[in-house]
C-alpha cells in the first residue's frame, strides 16, 4: 500500500485541478460571507466578525465544503480509471484491496483536509473588518466542525462508491446531479435531519439565536452556545456508519469488478 500511496501522492501533488477546485470554492465561500455581512457598508454597525460568520456555517461554509468533498472524491478516485493506470497496479500484482484502499484513503485525506480548510479559513477575512467578536466561542465552532468532518468523510465515501460503480467521471457526475435534482423536486423545505447528508450539515450548525435591533440600527445577535450533545453524537455515529457502509460497498464492488 505504501507504494500505491506514494505514487498517488506524487501524481496528485501535480494535479492542478484539485487546487483549482478548492480555490474556486473557497473564493465562492469567502464572497458569500462578505456579501452577506457587507463589512464595507456604511450603515450603522452590524457586527462583522469572524465568530458571526461561524454562526452562518450551516448555510455557507458547510454546504460548500460538502460540495467540495463530493466533487473531489469523484475526481481523485476516478483519475486512474480515466487514464487506465489502475490496470497497471493490478497487473503489477497488487491486491485489489490494496489498490482500492490506497486510493480511497488518500481521497479521504484530501477531501477532509480541504473541507477543514474551507471551514476554518473562509471566515478569516472578516477579522480585518470586525475582529473575531464574541458571537460564538471558538471551542463551540471547533467541536461542531470536527463532527462535521465526519460527515465530510461520509460524503467522500459516497462519492468513492459512486465513482467505483460508474467508472467514468461523466457518469459519476451525472448520477450525483440526478440525485441532487431528485432532492430538489421533493415537496416542502428540507428538515434538519441527520440521516440525509445535505441536511445533516445544517443540523450541526443550528443555534438558538435571537436578534435585537438597537436604536442606531445595530443588530445585535446573541446565540445560545450550548452544544447539542445528542445531535453531535448521533451525527457522528451515523456518519461513521454510513461511511463504513459505502466504503465497504465500494471495496466489495471494486474487488469483484471486471477490469
Amino acid at each position, binding site marked *: 500500500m505504501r507504494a500505491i500511496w506514494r505514487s498517488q501522492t506524487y501524481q496528485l501533488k501535480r494535479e492542478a485541478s484539485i487546487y483549482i477546485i478548492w480555490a474556486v470554492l473557497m473564493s465562492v465561500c469567502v464572497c458569500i460571507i462578505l456579501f452577506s455581512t457587507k463589512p464595507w*457598508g*456604511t*450603515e*450603522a454597525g452590524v457586527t462583522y466578525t469572524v465568530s458571526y460568520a461561524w454562526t452562518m456555517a450551516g448555510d455557507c461554509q458547510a454546504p460548500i465544503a460538502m460540495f467540495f468533498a463530493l466533487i473531489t472524491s469523484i475526481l481523485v478516485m476516478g483519475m486512474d480509471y480515466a487514464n487506465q493506470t489502475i490496470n497497471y497496479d493490478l497487473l503489477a500484482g497488487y491486491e485489489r484491496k490494496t489498490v482500492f484502499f490506497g486510493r480511497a484513503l488518500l481521497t479521504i485525506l484530501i477531501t477532509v483536509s480541504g473541507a477543514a480548510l474551507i471551514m476554518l479559513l473562509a471566515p478569516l477575512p472578516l477579522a480585518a473588518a470586525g475582529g473575531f467578536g464574541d458571537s460564538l466561542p471558538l471551542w463551540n465552532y471547533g467541536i461542531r466542525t470536527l463532527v462535521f468532518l465526519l460527515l465530510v468523510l461520509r460524503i467522500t465515501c459516497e462519492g468513492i462508491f459512486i465513482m467505483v*460503480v460508474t467508472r467514468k467521471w461523466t457518469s459519476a457526475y451525472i448520477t450525483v446531479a440526478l*440525485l441532487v435534482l*431528485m*432532492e430538489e423536486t*421533493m*415537496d*416542502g*423545505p*428540507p*428538515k434538519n*435531519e*441527520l*440521516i*440525509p*447528508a*445535505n*441536511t445533516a450539515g445544517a443540523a450541526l450548525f443550528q443555534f*438558538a*439565536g*435571537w*436578534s*435585537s*435591533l*438597537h*436604536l*442606531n*440600527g445595530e443588530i*445585535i445577535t446573541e446565540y*445560545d452556545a450550548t452544544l447539542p450533545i445528542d445531535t453531535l453524537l448521533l451525527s457522528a455515529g451515523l456518519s461513521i456508519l454510513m461511511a463504513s*457502509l459505502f466504503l*465497504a*460497498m465500494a471495496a*466489495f*464492488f471494486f474487488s*469483484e*469488478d*471486471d477490469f
Partner: protein
Amino acid sequence: MITDDIGLWAVCTLLALLMFYIVKTIDFSIRLHYRLGFAIPFILVLWFTATAGFEISLMGIYTGSLILVFCFFLKDKKKMYRILLAGLVCIAITPVIALHYKDYRITHYTDEFQAGFESMKEHYILTDYKQIDFDALYAEYLPRFEAADDSRSFPQAYAAWTDFCLAFFDGHVYVTAGTSEEAIRLNRDTYYKSQVGADYGFSLVTLSDGRTVFANVEPNGEAYDLGIRNGLELTSFDGVDIQTAKAHTKPIPAVGDSGNVSFYQSLMVTASGSSHADLTFIDARGTEQAITVTGTSDNYNRYRQTLDLLQHNNEDTNLSYKMISDDTALLSLNSMLVEGDITYEHAEATNESYSGMKALLQEQLQNMKEDGAHKLILDMRGNGGGYLDMIPVIASLFTDSEVFVASNAAYNEQTKRYEPVQTVYTSAENIWGNGEIVILVNSNTASAAEIFVHTMMQLPNVTVMGFTKTCGSAMMVSGMELSNVNLYFSGGMTLDETGEVLIDADASRISMMTPDIIIPFDEDAFHAVFENGEDYVLDYAVSYLEHMH
C-alpha cells in the same frame, strides 16, 4: 405526509420483490451492477428523510432497507434469498406498525412551546417591570399545547401560542406562522375567526360615557327585525350583564394599554355567545326589551368591518400628501420603512436609502408650503413601526433643536438597574417651520411609530390625538425561529429621558404615553363613523386646527 410514507413503502417493497426476481435470474459474477438494486431502497430512504423527516414508526422500512444492503456483499444466492426475505418482511410489516403507533408523524407542539418559553423566560426584558409570573404561565398554557399534540391540531397550538403572548400585555410579544406574508395572514385570520364568535347581525362598541351600543347592524337581518338599531344600548348578553361580559373578553385586538383594551372590549362580547343568544337592550322609546338572536356563520367579517371603521388605519401611499384646506396639508406616514414598503422584508438600511426617503419628505414639505400649507396633519394611524433609525431622520425635519428620541440600555449588575448606553437625538433641520402639527394615532400606532410620536410630542407646536392611546410597545424586538412558528418578544430595553422604561405599560397595564387629546367616542363620533362613514378623527383634527387661530 402519509401519502409520502405510503409511496416510500410501496417503492421499497416493489424493489425488494424485484430483487427476488433478479437474484433468481441474474448471474452477479457477470452482472455486478445489478447488485446496486440492493442499495437503492437505502438510498431512497436517505433522500426521502430529507424533507419527510425521521419517523420512528417507519423503522421497519429503515431497517429493511439496511438489511437489503447486506445482500450486496453476498455471493451465495441462498443467503441472499434469506436476507432479502428478512428485509422484505421488515419493510412489508411497516404499515401495520405505523397504523397502530399513536404518535405517528406527531408534531411536538409541546417541545416547541418549551423551547420558546425557556428562551423568553431568560431573555424577555420586561419580566420584572410587568411582574410576569412565568411559572404560572407555564402551568396555564402547557396543557393547551399537550392538548394540541393529542389532537394533532396546529390551529389549536397556534391559538395557544397567541393567547400565551396576549398574557404579556405587550404588543411586541407575538407569534407568526407561515413562510409567506399570505400564509402569516391566513394563520392569523384563522385564529381571529375562531375567537370572535358567531355573527348575530350586529357589533358592539363602547361609548365614552360607558354605554355599550349596537353598531354595524345588518339591515333587514333578524336582529334588525327584532328592533335592534345602531346606537341603542345593550344591557345584557346571553344572560350576563354587559359589564361582566366585557370583563371576561380577551384583549383583542388591542394589547399594551388597559384603556385601549376597554375601548375595543365590546367587540369581543359576542364571542362568548352560543348559537342563540338572549339579550336585553333599551329600545328607541327607552324601554328595556328582551330578545333572542340567532348566531350565523362566524363573526369575522363584521368584526373586521367594525374594527376598520373604528381604527380608520391610514392606507394612503406612505409619504404622500394632499391639501385638505387652503392652509392645511394631510401627510401620510403609515410606515417607518423605506419608501412605503410595508412588507416585513428587511429593506436595505443604507444611508443612501435614508437620504432618498429624507429627500422625498423634504420635497413634500417644501411643496406643501408652496401650496400654502402652514398647518400639518400627520396621519400615523396604523403605522406599525419599522426601523428605529428612521425616527431622527424624519423628526429632524420638524425640529430646530436637538430633541431626545430614546436610549437603549444595558443591565448594570451593581446598581441592579437598566442604564442608558446609547442615546439618540434628532438633529435640527426644521424644514417645516413652526406651523401647527397634529398627529393622528390609534392603537395600531406602534413600536418605532410611537417612539416617533413620543419624540414629536416634545415640540410645542405638536398635538397628538386619537380615539385611543398608541399601542404601548417601544422595546427592541428579538425573535426566534421555532419549528412551526416564529416567536417575537421584547428583548432590548429602551429608556426615556428620565431613565425609565419608554412607553410600555408596567404591571398597572397603563402605558406611559398619553396623546394630548383622547377624542371622546361619544354619540356624535358614533354617528359620524357608523351612520355617515366619516373619518371623525381627521375631522376633529381639522376643526381643532381651525380653532387654533
